[in-house]
């Protein structure tokens, strides 16, 4: 998110940042501050999961089926070692959430950034140049949109399996996911940016820039890009959530991360098997973690959009 903010943030020292409207609006909105706190805490605890988590659920040797399906510590039959309980494999739910969030966030951020890079570039070029370039790029986008993300993922997965050695499955799975999700989501950016760019390029200031002979890439990045960042941010925030959810769906189809090192989405999916059986904690806690994380990120995105929009000032 902060990457996207850069173009319009003044490239100066901390002092000027603290004076800025951005900082002002941040310190005057308790909801935003709370969201920022939650996001930072969750990202940090995910990044430092190996030091924060009481157990290492990815270390299979440490798991014991004797410990499986324990309810949260405060309930009858709970075990103080596992305060949010354990799942069917005897994994500590709390630790698994931390480790899972790590994978979900990684997949989410990487795929959103990749999709944004592809989409914004394509959209700017198509909208600015128009004509044949536009037609070709938009037809590619049409084709792209035709395929549900699930199918794109299967294709990417299949092709990668063909290219890469079979042993690398566990490591490759994550990047296959990133690529698959990014490839299926760049079009929304492209179409939105394109339609805005089409409007902008007919504006006087762009035409003026063209007249004084500024090169096209410069016009695109300096003049048109800031104007399209608003909608792009809206999409990006929503797609971060979407990426995590799609990851869960893909994991279900066997293209996701292996069940031995689950992401938050995979955890919810696994927990879904226990909705009727009474072991609600397997699905409820990862679900809550996911909702809180996405909610916090979205709140930040909302605030950023309002605060950063150059037209606000």
């Amino acid at each position, binding site marked *: 998110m902060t990457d996207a903010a850069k173009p319009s943030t003044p490239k100066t020292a901390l002092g000027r940042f603290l004076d800025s409207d951005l900082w002002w609006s941040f310190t005057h909105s308790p909801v935003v501050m709370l969201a920022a706190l939650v996001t930072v805490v969750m990202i940090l605890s995910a990044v430092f999961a190996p030091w924060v988590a009481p157990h290492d659920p990815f270390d*299979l040797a440490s798991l014991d*089926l004797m410990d499986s399906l324990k309810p949260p510590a405060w309930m009858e039959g709970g075990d103080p070692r596992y305060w949010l309980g354990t799942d069917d*494999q*005897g994994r500590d739910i709390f630790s698994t959430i931390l480790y899972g969030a790590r994978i979900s966030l990684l997949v989410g951020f990487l795929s959103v950034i990749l999709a944004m890079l592809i989409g914004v570039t394509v959209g700017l070029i198509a909208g600015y140049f128009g004509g044949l370039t536009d037609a070709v790029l938009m037809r590619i986008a049409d084709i792209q949109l035709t395929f549900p993300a699930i199918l794109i993922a299967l294709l990417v997965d299949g092709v990668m399996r063909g290219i890469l050695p079979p*042993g690398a*499955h566990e490591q490759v799975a994550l990047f296959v996911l990133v690529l698959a999700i990014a490839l299926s989501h760049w079009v929304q950016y492209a179409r939105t940016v394109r339609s805005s760019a089409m409007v902008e390029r007919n504006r006087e200031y762009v035409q003026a820039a063209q007249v004084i002979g500024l090169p096209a890439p410069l016009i695109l990045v300096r003049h048109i890009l800031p104007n399209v960042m608003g909608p792009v941010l809206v999409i990006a925030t929503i797609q971060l959530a979407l990426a995590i959810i799609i990851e869960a769906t893909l994991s279900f189809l066997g293209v996701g991360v292996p069940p031995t090192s689950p992401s938050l989405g995979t955890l919810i999916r696994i927990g879904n*098997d226990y909705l*009727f059986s009474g072991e609600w904690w397997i699905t409820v806690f990862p679900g809550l973690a996911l909702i809180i994380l996405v909610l916090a990120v979205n709140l930040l995105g909302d605030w950023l959009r309002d605060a950063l929009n150059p037209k606000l000032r």
Partner: protein
Amino acid sequence: MKIRSLALLGAAAIAISAMSAQVQAKTFRYAFQADAQSLDPHGLNETFTLGFLGNVYEGLTGYDAQMNLIPLLATKWETVSPTVWRFHLRKGVKFHDGGTFDADDVIFTWKRATSTESGQKARASLISNIRKIDDYTVEIETAGPVPTLARELAWLYIMDKQWSEKHNATEAAKPASAGRENAWATTHENGTGPFRVVERQPDVKTVMERFEGYWGKPKTNVTKVIFTPISQAATRVAALLSGQIDLAYPVPVQDWNRLNAAPGVKALTGPEARTIFLGMDQARDELTNSSVKGKNPFKDIRVRKAFAHAIDLNAIKRAIMRGASWPSGLMWAPQVNGYNPKMNVPYKYDPALSKKLLAEAGYPDGFTVGMDCPNNRYVNDEKICQAVASMLAKVGIKVDLLAQPKSKYFAKVTASGGYNTPFYLLGWTPGSMDVHNVFVNLIACRDKERNRGKYNIGDYCNKRVDELTDLIAAETDPKKRQAYIDEGAAILKKEYGYIPLHQQPLSWGVREDVSVAQRADNVMDIRNVVVNR
């Protein structure tokens, strides 16, 4: 279509009430995870499809609720010689269109089942000829002795010759040509069974009604059946709990408590004849996915032994299967002909021994190996694989688990994918319920020409066991045959060719005001359903 079937329904209802005032309309609604693939009884040889069609069509023989062989369209049979059987056919049997059943239909059915596209070819080709003695007596000849013939015939459903000729359905339809050639029977039926199909939308809904001209007096009081395939387990359970259906199967084992606690619903369980086991690639010189290069660790019996003793079957039973599995030391279940309880001793859980063996074999720090696993085929398959992975981790083996849906899984590990797996989980139910089927498919050396060892994915191969497979096939003396079977089982066990895990449970959910019989082959026979409401 809809209007017409409603009209038919109305007419049927009037007809029923006219005939007897006591008979009330009893509707039975049930759901399975998939639909029958076709209405053609000689289409796919698959348990659910055949079981489903068993309500509409009938064979010469059949199975009752306890899986005892019973006469259906034949009244009795005797063996004239080891290769000739005489069947006496039932008189007064009508097909659903009113046609009469006789010996010509039996001969026609056999010929149809041998046609190119038939899924029943393997079964039908056990028979070399059928002679008509009179309209209600036939003699069936087999190429060699087939002691199980009467059992096999329970799955060869009789079709009407006249009806098939009239609708150009005298051969089983090609899989890719339904709707064009010979395809009438894939979407229409004309059986002799107690129910007839009145409405069918594949994958969505099938409606059956009681056939008033049925020859028998089955236990059931059901007059109308609505079958809906529901693929998601959670949706299936929800539909049962909410009272929209009377029976759902399979239901997840972890939901049994919920079903039993809910009012008016219960879980119905029993052992299934399917054995779940682990296999290891013992053929390649280097595994397709392992940290060990230049050699295949599974060729060393100490490694296979170490794997076998690292797995705690009882822990899997308790935690993953909720107590509903039967840990096994054999590759076949107690229901299978040729089972000997004395031989059924699982490998003992002994991780210390496993570690020692791995060290002796030259892997004191273990190694990494890929594992393939389906995630929508067997009861809790993926969870079992995960548990196996963590048990193996404790003795130093790092498992790179790849759990996939069954189509991708089978495409990778079976013959079409070049048996591309170092270590895998598979389940097997012998179609004939005889141990020879297990030997020829899973245990005999792989041999494409002789159609053997087709599912021997790891290519476990022992000359003596290979010989025993033939001996078991031909031996008619039960005592001698059992000795061969036991010898094969002992060799397999000593050589750690496979690691049997358990037999999985049948798992149905049913409303309490409906009584059903859960057959060991997981077939839902509506003849045994009684609706008490």
